[in-house]
């Protein structure tokens, strides 16, 4: 292993089985002159809560797309749960993502034409595995309701209203419920709090952590706001691990 990858070594993570393991990974957007990302090594252990920090345009979202298998690196391997997803056929990658990863975006997470519950259960339409896990004890809607209630949302209250009526913070909590349903192993959140004010931000983080812990998922949380980092097990600065010449300004 190259010395530059030592950033990921100094935690308790090496004891547990790594859920994410990137080796010698390089990615360039089509038509781009240079690589956006060059990461020699990044390992994340199961159950970790990672704070991925980086300046705007530094490639955070790109990295998450690679982890989710929406993008494929030109070089190197990306292993999730021991499976090298860059070697998978694209359809297999898509179902792998559906089965094992839950996403929360910055904002506008919901499909405006689906009801609250249908938005939450959406991943179960694409993943039989998550559908099965979610319906082990209750109906699918029952599980969605349970998750929403734990996130302090009352689905009955929004039953006949479009999801676009929800406040931004409420929408983000629905997105968390959607990411969590069917207990995917990895939760990836791309600046989910940037549209929230400070109070709502911490309240949201508390709920998110509680739920992630409960479902024993691993969390990768992206933000450029360093004030949040103390809440996480570990901070990964993209500028430190990315050897590509970054056009974004380092934080």
């Amino acid at each position, binding site marked *: 292993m190259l010395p530059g990858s030592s950033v990921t070594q100094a935690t308790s993570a090496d004891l547990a089985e790594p859920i994410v393991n990137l080796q010698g990974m390089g990615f360039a957007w089509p038509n781009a002159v240079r690589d956006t990302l060059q990461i020699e090594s990044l390992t994340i252990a199961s159950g970790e809560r990672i704070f991925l920090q980086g300046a705007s345009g530094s490639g955070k979202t790109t990295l998450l797309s690679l982890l989710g298998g929406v993008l494929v690196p030109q070089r190197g391997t990306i292993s999730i749960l021991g499976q090298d997803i860059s070697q998978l056929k694209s359809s297999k990658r898509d179902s792998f993502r559906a089965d094992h990863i839950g996403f929360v975006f910055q904002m506008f997470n919901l*499909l405006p034409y689906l009801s609250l519950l249908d938005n939450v259960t959406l991943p179960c339409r694409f993943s039989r595995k998550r559908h099965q896990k979610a319906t082990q004890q209750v109906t699918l809607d029952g599980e969605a309701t349970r998750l929403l209630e734990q996130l302090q949302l009352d689905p009955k209250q929004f039953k006949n209203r479009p999801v676009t009526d929800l406040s931004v913070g409420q929408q983000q909590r629905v997105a968390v419920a*959607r990411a969590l349903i069917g207990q995917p192993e990895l939760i990836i959140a791309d600046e989910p709090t940037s549209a929230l004010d400070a109070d709502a931000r911490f309240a949201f983080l508390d709920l998110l952590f509680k739920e992630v812990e409960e479902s024993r998922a691993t969390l990768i949380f992206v933000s450029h706001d360093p004030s949040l980092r103390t809440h996480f097990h570990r901070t990964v600065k993209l500028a430190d691990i990315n050897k590509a010449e970054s056009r974004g300004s380092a934080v």
Partner: protein
Amino acid sequence: MSIYMLTLRSLANRKTTVLLTVIAIAISVMLFLGVETLRREAKASFANTVSGTDLIVGARSGSVQLLLYSVFRIGNATNNISWESYEKVSKHRQVAWTIPFSLGDSHRGYRVLGTNLDYFTHFRYGNKRNLEFAEGNAFDGVYEAVLGAEVAKKLGYQLGQSIILSHGTGKVSFSDHSDKPFVVSGILKSTGTPVDRTVHVSLEGIEAIHIGWETGGPTGKLVTAEEALAMDLQPEVITAFLVGLKSKMATFQLQRAINNYRGEPLLAILPGVALQELWGLLAVAENALLTISGFVVVTGLIGMLTVIWSGLNERRREMAILRSVGARPRHIFYLLMLESTLLAAAGVLFGVALLYLGLAVAQPILEQQVGIFIQIRLLSSTDLYLLAAVLLGGCLVGALPAYRAYRLSLADGMTIRI
């Protein structure tokens, strides 16, 4: 299937645009099918009007014109022909029967046909069918009339009803033959041809009401109905006549003989040939209409393309969300394909419904104003092909935005663009 459900929900969420798009396609489909139906039905209606007649003879003019005014009661004759010529032809050894027509009067918008009893025995329509009486009999006296089915139905006439004929064929006539009323002696069964819209009287009846009207109005020496009966009611002129031959072989020979007749300028036509000529005349208009309505359909589909395409950008977010929960780029493609296919299908269905509604409304109007009887039938195989073509067009049109969304969703990764 989940994609199907998502598409439906997504469409339901955009009700207004979707509805407008569907309406645009539906109207274009209705127009397209409507033109096609009118074309077909008009032809069928014309072709059904006369059958078993070998020649139609009238004053020399265009053959289409003769065909139109003699059997379709459309337009008017420019000239009459003499009774003498008629007698000559009907006595020809090859001629099996003739039916004289004397036109020019009307009753409340319906044309009056002066003829003789041969009409009821020899006139054929459709698939060589004879005329049949629903009630009563053929006219016997001078002042008796036989009504076509529609005349009786629309005007609510029964046997024994007294009616007054008007001079000329306009809808509103100011010169009535009110001094010589006619009595309904019979009502014909419906035929689906102009016969239904005709009032039939004897040639003598026509003659009787025109005594003193030689100049076109009641200016001569007028007589009462009874006085007229005592007079010589043998007509001197008629408008046209139909000829049935003993052998079809003689058709062309007799036609030539009539066309070369020295006594007066006559024209003999074969109904089938004249119909073909009529179609030839109409083909240009027909094709123009069909082409235009075809383009209207294309416009409708382009409208749909515009709507879907312009919605794509704001739906990139939706695509990214779907991708994040495991949708494949293929799913995104299907989603949009399905959307346009559903829109086109809804447009087609709605269009067919509009077509039937339109036909139901247009049927009586066309029948009365133009004299073309439109039968409302199930969709023909041609119609179904046309509809399939519209659907296919919808799919093809949908493939464009679907492909673009597919490309975008591959290119965007997890980036949510707003």
